[in-house]
């Protein structure tokens, strides 16, 4: 294959890839998940203090380290406070699908998770999360007056796009450092138990997919096989100096079955000198008596005494 053809091949693959695949819409692994501004009797920190907090959620199925990232808060135009999440604390690594909680108490000396800002109870609060390269990962504006005391502004479920006020009611409860929506049961399983208790649905769907996969492979290799036979026929025609396609078809070029090829290979192998069954050499096997084995022999394991000279 010449170079332009190879180039066209790769370009077409790239074009196909770009045209058919959907991008994940710039989704980041870590997002701001829940914000509580006015904490009077909600979750308290290790010092027994009630402060506002910002919860970050790792949406991926891999650990993500927040060290080196920035949390920024602004409640007035032109007044942005930036908190650098310190490096060197193992607790900044968030496990897959887990949370990290940062206290907006303005006392960073209390530890990694205590920030240098406080959230405003009267103005809009803009909270932004930046990576170490200062690229914006996620942001949220908590409108002024939307939250009462001990209420939080949170994603409906972890990592989802919709936000709502969690007012600690029966279905919308404040959830610091835990899932925004507690799953009571397995929805997938429930669906199966409800609609397909016998398993016929699963059987039909799954068998269809299995057949589709293998039919695709079948079609693909039927095509590949046809091309391979055609190429072999063409090569055979060149080797025999034949140009007439009908003659090639009559002589069944390129259609030699595998067992014929195996027989020819065997014959060639034998013709090349592999056909001697009787060896000229005489092999003598004499019994050697060895009463020890390497496992029990002391000769190989004991150190020799030093020789006196």
């Amino acid at each position: 294959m010449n170079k332009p053809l190879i180039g066209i091949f790769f370009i077409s693959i790239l074009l196909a890839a770009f045209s058919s695949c959907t991008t994940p819409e710039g989704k980041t692994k870590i997002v701001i998940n829940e914000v509580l501004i006015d904490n009077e009797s909600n979750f308290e920190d290790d010092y027994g203090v009630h402060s506002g907090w910002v919860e970050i959620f790792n949406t991926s199925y891999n650990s993500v380290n927040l060290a080196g990232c920035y949390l920024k808060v602004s409640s007035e135009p032109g007044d942005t406070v930036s908190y650098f999440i310190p490096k060197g604390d193992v607790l900044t690594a968030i496990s897959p699908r887990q949370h990290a909680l940062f206290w907006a108490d303005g006392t960073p000396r209390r530890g990694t998770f205590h920030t240098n800002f406080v959230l405003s109870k009267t103005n809009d609060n803009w909270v932004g999360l930046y990576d170490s390269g200062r690229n914006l990962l996620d942001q949220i504006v908590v409108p002024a007056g939307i939250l009462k005391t001990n209420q939080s502004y949170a994603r409906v479920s972890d990592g989802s796009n919709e936000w709502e006020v969690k007012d600690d009611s029966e279905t919308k409860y404040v959830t610091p450092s835990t899932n925004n929506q507690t799953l009571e049961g397995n929805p997938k399983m429930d669906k199966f138990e409800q609609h397909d208790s016998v398993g016929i649905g699963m059987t039909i769907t799954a068998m269809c997919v299995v057949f589709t996969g293998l039919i695709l492979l079948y079609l693909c290799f039927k095509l590949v096989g046809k091309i391979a036979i055609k190429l072999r026929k063409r090569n055979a025609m060149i080797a025999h100096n034949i140009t007439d396609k009908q003659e090639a078809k009559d002589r069944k070029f390129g259609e030699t079955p595998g067992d014929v090829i195996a027989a020819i290979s065997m014959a060639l192998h034998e013709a090349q000198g592999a056909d001697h069954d009787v060896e000229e050499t005489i092999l003598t096997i004499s019994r050697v008596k060895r009463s020890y084995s390497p496992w029990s022999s002391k000769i190989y394991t004991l150190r020799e005494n030093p020789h006196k000279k």
Partner: protein
Amino acid sequence: MGEFVNFLQNNLADFWTYTGFHNATYQHFIMIGVGIFFIYLAVAKEFEPMLLIPIGFGMLVGNIPFNMEAGLQVGIYEQGSVLNILYQGVTSGWYPPLIFLGIGAMTDFSALISNPKLMLIGAAAQFGIFGAYMIALELGFDPMQAAAIGIIGGADGPTAIFLSSKLAPNLMGAIAVSAYSYMALVPVIQPPIMRLLTTKKERVIHMKAPRAVSHTEKVMFPIIGLLLTCFLVPSGLPLLGMLFFGNLLKESGVTRRLAETARGPLIDTITILLGLTVGASTQASEFLTVNSILIFVLGALSFVIATASGVLFVKIFNLILSKDNKINPLIGNAGVSAVPDSARISQIIGLEYDPTNYLLMHAMGPNVAGVIGSAVAAGILLGFLV
């Protein structure tokens, strides 16, 4: 002096509570008996010795009674014990993909490439998985457990372990032992079904000799196979990825050392560890339950369904095939992925009825398609239920 004697007596009495004799229950002896039976089958009858020897001996290892209250860290279910560490490869599911790597490196897909329609038999035989799934649901297992049990019908030990470790870890011991036991019992289970479902005329069908397959086709197979199957079922990637990777190592012709390691020392090492730990996981206290017995029954049923559906599919398929391209239904059993045993059964039964009819290479087609099919089926179940 009396106090010292008393001390010795107490010591010995204490020691006695740690011995296997003191802690033994009848369940331990049942499992030890099963283990010895497996070893007997492997040694005397040569039923899958590579599997049954490690599993059988593992059963002995796992059923040595000991004081479970003492925290000796010897049992397979005690965190931090040596056996428990070795068992991690099973529970976290990384032994099966490595086995698949070896299988890929030792499998010749030529028969399948030369006659790709045989792939459909491999697909049809997967009905065993879903047949058993439906029966398991009827018996009261939840969908995840039913799927893990059903996969026994795929006749693929690594796939069964992989799927059960994800869907029903508590049933994994029984599922793994059941899958491997029935794989070993393929020569007993399949022939009667094959004879029952075929006529004498069908059994002597001579199939067209497969064409020679070029090196390029063999190299293309793992690449295209991976892309097609994994784009369709990404959840099958750990198994299918390793299977096709191993095959590429073999067929590329330029990575001979890697291929030899994958199909030799690597797969042997993993087989030893997998067999031993799966056997040891049958600790009587965890294993001898009603569920385990049900799993064994369902496993047998799924094998029967898989074999029957493969054979019946060929019979139906023959209705639309031309006279020259007819398939011998005796290779239908090979759709289950017990490689190469089920293909060997096709060959043996075929020769019984016509000593000139060699079905082995033809049966290898659906046999390896069955490996792909069961991995795809496992991926589907994983995708649907997790």
